[in-house]
């Protein structure tokens, strides 16, 4: 069994289901991110693990022990709260020492471990400050130090970067990841920000409306989304509805155009949703070589928006569907030559095409 295991966990708040059929195993030392839109049940799942929220049904195992009914104060989880939740009347050092005092460790050892934890988050110089005398980033590091100093069985991070400004966020996420890897702490993180999840976690758990939609490594989830929700939540995608004609062939319902793609998950005749990523497609004024075997769509340009790193091109087909294509900045010259209404061809490789359930 996994080091940390949610077994078909469910949570109802006064009859409203917040989390259902939550099944997840996490290995020792792994960092996993729960990712999903606001209200999908991420925090509830984390709080059930910490013991702040009771489980309606199912069970949670940590390091071989069933902790479902264990009170929060004996679970040995180390949590970094969304607003940090530092003790306002205690200094930085006292905040970090609190968990060790509760464990009734000898004074000398407490001192040693607090010093080491503060060094790890580079806060030794601020040990005697009060939380309100610290910047947001520093408070965040105190919260992290306070959670890791007790050597928790699992480290819990609830939207750890949400209260920081954009510039700091980059820095802090690298720092958290580094501390996690150095300490080897098994970590469960909650976030609604896909960049954060992609850059920090070993594995992602994509959630929607209280359910797990997909579990996988970052690249796996991005490249092979399990369904339309994941494809849209992790970046952007273009979709075409239709049916599988035969192995490797898919027909668009609106235009009867046929596209090539891997159809192995579907039987001929099945309805499906074809998708491709905006950054995987190219645009050309003339139809591309048919020899290349690329999937091609014809349409006309609606808008081209300059985004700095890239140019977002919106294209409408004769059938009224619209598609978004992301051109790299190096193609800015090409985009600048286009007028709204010019005829264009969108092409992308069958290997970059995904077929999703409807």
């Amino acid at each position, binding site marked *: 069994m996994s080091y940390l295991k949610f077994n078909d966990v469910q949570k109802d708040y006064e009859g409203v289901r917040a989390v259902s059929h939550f099944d997840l195993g996490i290995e020792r030392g792994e960092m996993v991110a729960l990712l999903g839109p606001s209200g999908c049940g991420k925090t509830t799942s984390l709080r059930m693990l*910490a*013991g*702040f929220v009771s489980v309606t049904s199912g069970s949670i195992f940590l390091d071989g022990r069933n902790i479902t009914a264990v009170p*929060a*104060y*004996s*679970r*040995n*989880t*180390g*949590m970094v*709260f*969304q*607003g940090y*939740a*530092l*003790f*306002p*009347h205690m200094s930085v050092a006292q905040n970090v020492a*609190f*968990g060790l005092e*509760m*464990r009734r460790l000898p004074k000398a050892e407490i001192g040693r471990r607090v010093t080491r934890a503060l060094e790890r988050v580079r806060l030794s110089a601020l040990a005697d400050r009060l939380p309100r005398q610290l910047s947001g980033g520093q408070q965040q590091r105190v919260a992290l130090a*306070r959670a890791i100093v*007790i050597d928790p069985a699992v480290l819990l991070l609830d939207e750890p970067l949400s209260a920081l400004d954009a510039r700091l966020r980059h820095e802090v996420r690298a720092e958290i990841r580094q501390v996690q890897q150095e300490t080897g702490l098994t970590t469960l993180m909650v976030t609604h920000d896909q960049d954060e999840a992609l850059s920090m976690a070993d594995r992602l758990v994509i959630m929607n409306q209280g359910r797990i939609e997909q579990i996988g490594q970052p690249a796996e989830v991005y490249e092979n989304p399990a369904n339309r929700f994941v494809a849209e939540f992790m970046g952007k995608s273009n979709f075409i509805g239709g049916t599988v004609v035969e192995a490797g062939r898919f027909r668009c319902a609106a235009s009867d155009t046929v596209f090539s793609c891997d159809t192995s998950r579907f039987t001929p005749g099945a309805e499906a949703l074809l998708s491709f990523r905006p950054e995987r497609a190219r645009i050309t004024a003339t139809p591309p070589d048919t020899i290349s075997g690329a999937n091609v769509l014809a349409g006309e340009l609606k808008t081209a928006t300059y985004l700095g790193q890239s140019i977002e091109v919106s294209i409408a087909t004769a059938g009224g569907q619209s598609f978004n294509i992301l051109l790299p900045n190096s193609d800015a010259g090409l985009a600048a030559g286009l007028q709204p209404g010019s005829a264009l061809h969108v092409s992308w490789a069958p290997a970059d095409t995904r077929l999703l359930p409807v």
Partner: protein
Amino acid sequence: MKAHISSWSYRALVFGTMLFVVTPLITVIWVSFFSNKLISLPPQGYSFTWYLNAWRLDDFRGGFLLSLKVAVVATFIGLVIAVPASLALVRGRFPGKSFISTLLLSPMMIPGVVAGSAVYIYYIQFELLTNVQLAATFPGLVAAHVVLTIPWVVRLVTASLVGANESIEEAALNLGAHPWRVFWRITLPSVRPGLIAGGLFSFIMSFTDLEKSIFLIGPGSTTLPIAIINYLEWNLDPTVAAVAAVQIFLIGFMLIISDPYIKLSRAF
């Protein structure tokens, strides 16, 4: 230019207001040191006689001690009742919460004369029914004053609790603290400013109360504000100023020593 004028008139307004508030206090303290028997300007000289005189008069000495005793006891009881009540009002979920909150705060909105006469009538009826005397007794006076103190503690402690981050209690639990240790080490210290401010205002409200007490004191035992009124009926020498000055000093002293613990401006 415009900004300059408005900042100038703003300063003038602030200064004027301060002057309006502080001048009577300064004057009373000044007059209390006059040596002349009738209050008149300019003073003929300065002396400390009126303070000694006030202490020699049974009404003032007894009044001061009684007011102090009532205020201390009423504040203490008020805190013991109102702190758990505030916790329940902010953290608890139960029907009738806002009604109870309004009820506890209502003594603030009822004029003292109305409340005093109501309590008096209630005490008399209670005595007729049970033969237990409350009017003109120390417990009766304290009970009436506890009602004065509760809204202040509830209001200020509630304000601290609402401002306090509820998740710090969860953080303490998460770090291995049992619930009762969370209360003593986290919850109580985090409402300390409200607790001190609430206690302070309770004390001041009780110590300076005139309208309510006037219905409830017994013969031969008056509180300080009543003693002042009684004295003023027949005399107009600086003794009264000396008594008032002592009140001002006491309250001022309490405000100053409690200032490091509370930011009064933030308590409201």
